[in-house]
């Protein structure tokens, strides 16, 4: 099942890529190929790779019919919700990164994740997160000269 989805995604991506390639304006002065030729080759390459995948799918189907195991089953399980929640929490972190600043946004993000994945150790989590944020901000901005978002904190 997963391989069939990958096959369809590859075809769709090749289609979108060909469309995107057609949108590139052509100026082929001194360059016999222009900016479109290589991308076109890649689009064709992706179609060939998709065809190879189709051959593998058909070969595997024969194996399954002959009594082999279907390894491509797709199931949504409880842990997938957890991964999805982490992705959503990270998206919120990124959205707040500049408005709140590195220190505050990171502190909230870390407290949220450690509170769930390192449960029951509130003091340890709180202290570690505060120390990590303070040390990493000072080390990167003051010692290494890295520019990090300040946000609402004035230093």
């Amino acid at each position: 099942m997963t391989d069939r989805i990958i096959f369809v995604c590859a075809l769709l991506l090749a289609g979108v890529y060909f469309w995107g390639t057609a949108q590139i304006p052509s100026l082929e002065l001194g360059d016999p190929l222009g900016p479109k030729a290589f991308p076109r080759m890649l689009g064709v390459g992706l179609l060939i790779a998709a065809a190879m995948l189709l051959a593998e799918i058909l070969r595997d189907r024969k194996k399954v019919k002959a009594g082999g195991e279907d390894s491509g089953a797709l199931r949504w399980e409880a842990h997938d919700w957890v991964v999805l929640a982490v992705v959503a929490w990270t998206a919120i972190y990124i959205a707040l990164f500049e408005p709140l600043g590195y220190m505050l946004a990171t502190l909230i993000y870390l407290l949220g994740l450690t509170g769930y994945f390192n449960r029951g150790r509130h003091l340890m989590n709180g202290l570690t997160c505060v120390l990590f944020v303070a040390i990493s901000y000072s080390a990167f901005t003051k010692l290494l000269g890295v520019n990090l978002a300040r946000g609402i904190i004035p230093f």
Partner: protein
Amino acid sequence: METLTHILNGFSVAMQPINLWYTFLGVFMGTIIGVLPGIGPSAGIALLIPITYGMNPTSALIMMAGIYYGAKYGGSTTAILIRTPGEAASVMTSIDGYEMAKKGRAGAALAVSAIGSFIAGTIGVIGLTLFAVPLTSMALKFGPAEYFTLMLFAMTAVSTLTGKSPAKGLIATILGLMIATIGIDLQSGQARYTMGIPEFQDGVGFVVVVVGLFAMAEVLRGLEGIYRGTSAEAMKIKGKLWLTREEWRRSIGPIWRGGIIGFVVGVLPGAGGTIASIMSYTTEKRLSKHPEEFGHGAIEGVAGPESANNSDTAGALVPLLTLGIPGGGATAVMLGAFIMYGVQPGPMLFQNRPDLVWGLINSMYIGNVMLVILNLPLIGLFVRLLYIPQGILYPMIVAISAIGAYAINGSVVDLWLILLFGVIGYIFDKVDIPVAPLVLSLVLGGMMEQSFRQAMTISGGDLKIFYGSAITVTLLVMSLISVLLPFVIPRLRALGSKGDES
């Protein structure tokens, strides 16, 4: 004679106090990165690039190489004590190393992996020193067509040899090449696939792709593991951190053989440390008088693979430094680092910057000595890292990744890209699409297109240029073989087994 002078000068560069410090810093961080799950050497090197922008390129590259080979040392510690390879190439060490730890011989397993890594790592660097110059002279004959076919070979080999399905490897390769086409086309000045996002005009930075695919995806997998209760506990080190006379006797052969296997496999594109360690493991099992001990704590099963995956790193630097073409994901990131510092690896580098290239190579001799010291008397220090709760460690990796990505352009778009590629890396892992080919082709994509277009300009648009010389024809044939091999071998095996039955 001139080369010998350059090599000796390289030692004086490597021995400068500042470079000794960066060698130490690199191998120290490499060991930590190898021990900890989450950030592997590829993401570690990528994250350091924006932070070390202003540094002298020689020192920065010495430090990054230190991370690359240092991580191999650290990876074995995790493999032995928690049966989870801290670094992919340590996968074979986790079999017998963990069994040895269960029998109270963790100290001996850690000692043999450190000593084996040191001896084999040094064999690898000697090989690199010996083979670099002849390959460089050959590479001087390369024009754009030769470079294009060489990159084609590296990519086809990596895409079909990495992972379970050649088709999926090829899809990953083409995806990487497609991402590389995003941005302003250098020859025509036309914007391609930028979708109106100004940050995309300079292209999608490989740093964010690597950090997303390797670090962020690993965080998602790790947190999922905590939720499912599948994350492992570290074992305590028991027994002396040294070998008995009998263990020495049994280890020395596998160390030498592993060193040679690792170097040879490392030079070839696509194979990498994991294949080197598997080959060493199977070789030792075949040569052993007690093959039944393998899988139950045979010291040869630790000594061989650990040696192989360390000399592999020096082998992998041969095509990177002499031809400018990496043969795998981690060396592709190294190439990205070279380019970021304005240094183009390849034959001209040996002529124009012998101080840099030989300083870098010779720092690896020193780095290996530092690593054996770090990984024997000081191993207890690194093992403590394994006791950090993973529920704290993984979220911090995201924060470190955010700092590294934001430091590049000061743009939040790079953070979104890390998340996007993290999700892609997580899904790819679930559906068995390898990420190393994507990283390799992303780094090589721009160069590959330029070589192709330069070759076509030289030939006036005639494709004959790609099969006009012995080098290009050989490389094209090798590319074709690497694509067809995964399809042909199973058929040959099936034919063979049918023949046996009849």
